[in-house]
């Protein structure tokens, strides 16, 4: 197997693994956060506005982990820095 196809294979498999494994944790975390926020809103409907705002901010924080994985897999596919070494 030559170098080019090795780099291509490693990049594509790495992108898939990064996205697949990387979204497990944020998925679990976001589910937990939404469940707790729904329970809190059901207990105290008056505090709905501040609870929703805090929920959104927290979801954005959790989600950014999954977004990092996504950006890394996009870099591996579209803007791979290792192509320069194998394609002259």
């Amino acid at each position, binding site marked *: 197997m030559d170098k080019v196809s090795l780099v291509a294979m490693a990049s594509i498999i790495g992108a898939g693994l990064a996205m697949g494994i990387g979204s497990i944790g944020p998925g679990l975390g976001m589910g937990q956060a939404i469940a707790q926020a729904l329970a809190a809103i059901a207990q105290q409907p008056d505090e709905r506005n501040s609870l929703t*705002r805090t929920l959104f*901010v927290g979801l954005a924080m959790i*989600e*950014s982990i999954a*977004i990092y994985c996504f*950006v890394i897999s*996009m870099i591996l596919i579209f803007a791979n820095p290792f192509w320069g070494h194998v394609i002259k």
Partner: protein
Amino acid sequence: MEVVTLNQISPDQVIIWSWGFIVLNVTILYTWLVMAILVVGSWLITRNLSSEMNTSRWQHFMEVIVSIIRGEISEMTKRGPDHYVPLVGTLFLFICTSNVLVIVPGFVAPTSSITTTAALATCVFIAVPYYGISRIGILHYVKEYFQPTFIFFPFHVMGELSRTLALTVRLFGNIMSHEKVIGILLAVTPFLFPVVMQILGLLIGVIQAYIFAILSMVYIASALSAEEDVHGELKKEGSPA
């Protein structure tokens, strides 16, 4: 109409016109378009404001938007929202407009380019020390970086830098990923699913604009949180007992 093809990650790569070192790419063009829509639209609406009973419907629309933004901001800061509405409201309106206009065919959201989102996050990065220093003075602001001991100084600086990076990548990743998902779905299941995903994309675009504005307000408010301590100390020193 396809401006950015599927194998291009950013609209920066689509160059419309170039002369010497001046390059006009799609991002700059649509940023100008969004700015023009916002400026001309608000100029047209605020040209003849009235406080009569029968105001125009556009004025009602504008009043609703402005009062919602002011309400959200004043809930987060103890003081009035007047200082923060120009920055945070502009960020929200710009991001929201450019995300919602995606439904127009041929429009590419400028927020799907990492350069635009990096510029917006840099504005927040500069605005945080600006508001902090103008509120509590440079001495108290710098002192915050050395709390609780001086060892924590590099961690505070790293926190500022990494949250700017997080702001950049979050907005860029969300908007760009939706364009790519819709592009892939158009190739796989053409008719119904891309439309449903596009509706979901509108929702996500508005939520991302809200999150960007709220997070920048949270960062600014965290720089101001020392203010209460300063006033508390002054009161303690000033009180006789």
